[in-house]
């Protein structure tokens, strides 16, 4: 089984194609759209979690690329600026999946990217604007 978060960039002419339909019907993949910003005639972005067999996953990604969609792994999309962060911990209070937490002894901020669903709650809550989501 493969499960990955993908950052898809749609060129303007491709932005209306129903790619999730094809991923389900043709490749038996389970798509979970975490975030999407798609408008006709404009470049679109989608944060997509895709689950399925490794072979079908590869085939699905090849299909996306063949459709002219830029496919990248999404893990690098959230950025914590250590120079701006004052380790107040406010982001941990709004992080429902528990991706952001404070270390028990030191109180330092711990970010577990695997748990992040890119909901942006921390981006909005951070009083230092130290968390940015590149999308």
């Amino acid at each position: 089984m493969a499960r990955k978060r993908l950052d898809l960039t749609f060129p303007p002419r491709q932005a209306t194609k129903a790619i999730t339909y094809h991923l389900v019907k043709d490749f038996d993949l389970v798509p979970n759209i975490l975030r999407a910003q798609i408008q006709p005639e404009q470049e679109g972005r989608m944060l997509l979690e895709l689950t399925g067999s490794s072979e079908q996953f590869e085939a699905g990604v090849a299909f996306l690329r063949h459709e002219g969609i830029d496919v990248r792994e999404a893990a690098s999309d959230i950025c914590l600026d250590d120079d701006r962060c004052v380790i107040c911990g406010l982001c941990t209070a709004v992080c429902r999946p528990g991706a952001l937490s404070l270390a028990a002894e030191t109180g330092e901020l711990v970010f577990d990217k695997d748990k992040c669903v890119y909901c942006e709650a921390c981006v909005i809550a951070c009083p230092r604007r130290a968390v940015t989501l590149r999308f």
Partner: protein
Amino acid sequence: MSKSWEEINAKIASGEAVVMTAEEFGSLAAAEGVSEAARIVDVVTTGTFGPMCSTGAFLNFGHSDPPIKMGTITLNDVPASGGLAAVDTYLGATEPSTTRGIEYGGAHVIEDLLRGRAVRLKASGPGTDCYPRTEIDTWVTLDDLNQAYLFNPRNCYQNYAVAVNTGDRALYTYLGTLLPRLANATYCSAGALSPLLNDPTYRTVGVGTRCFVAGAPGYVAWEGTQHNPNQQRDGHGEPVGPAGTIAVIADLKQASAEYFSAATMAGYGVSAFVGIGIPIPVLDEDLAATLALTDAELTATVFDYGVQRRSRPALRQVTYAELRSGEIEIDGKRVPTGPISSLPVARRIATELRRWITEHRFTLAPPLQPLPQPGSQGFRPLEIRTEEAI
């Protein structure tokens, strides 16, 4: 066992003083007992680093040629007070920018000045015989200013509320984003490191106390606004909710952006994280007993901010140890917690203050005047009334 201020200062001056942070002192007292800890240690350092809205700076720009009597003043588009002498101003931390709103405010201007950045000063005035200029548009840095000093009317809350939201929509508050249906709890205190929790009845902290303010040596100038010594107290004499506050003063030119950080609280406004540290002399065992209290013994009250009134319902008491565990229980529900006050920076402040005392021989100043004591004054609400009703 008792020690005088003079004895302790003599030890600091000769480099013999034993100085510990409040956390270190708590551990020592747990291991050796309060009496022994009180005998060994001369000074306990504290620290806190949280958003403190009642913060700001007095600035003097010097006179242009021809001079101007500044009436309306902005710094990087953030309005500052024109209600002082010709080229004096007070810049409040929470003042939002006229162009960028709460994304940039008075606190950001102060942080930019601390970082050595030039700030655009625009002002206009009426034009008078002695101040003929009516407009000015220039750039200033912290070095250019004649005087620049922080004067924060309310910092360093002795304790604070824990905020939750039982309502069904998210609330954007000065205690952060409160998720609906008790989905989180936020709190804002350094707990065992909090300066005024280490001296609950203000025996050693008063007007004239020398302290750490945003990285600069400063002073307690007065009681803070909304200072409320009459808050309900526990068996240790510690307030269980927001209580004492202090007004502090310090030279901005000696302060550091490491201990002053501008903040934008989502949906609420601008604030400033301010680092405050106060040294507490271990005068006797009574004082040592409160200095030794840990997060497991200090408590705060959980309030429901879902009720948007002056008096919010109190749901329960929790210890800071529970809050720091990342989860508290309310009405049988496990509620994740998150702080707003930085523990790592509070520790850094207490450690830095310890270094000031041991290395720079930073001596302690006994209060010139005590802060209002428990029982001495109330905390008044603002009533809404008409002229006829007075």
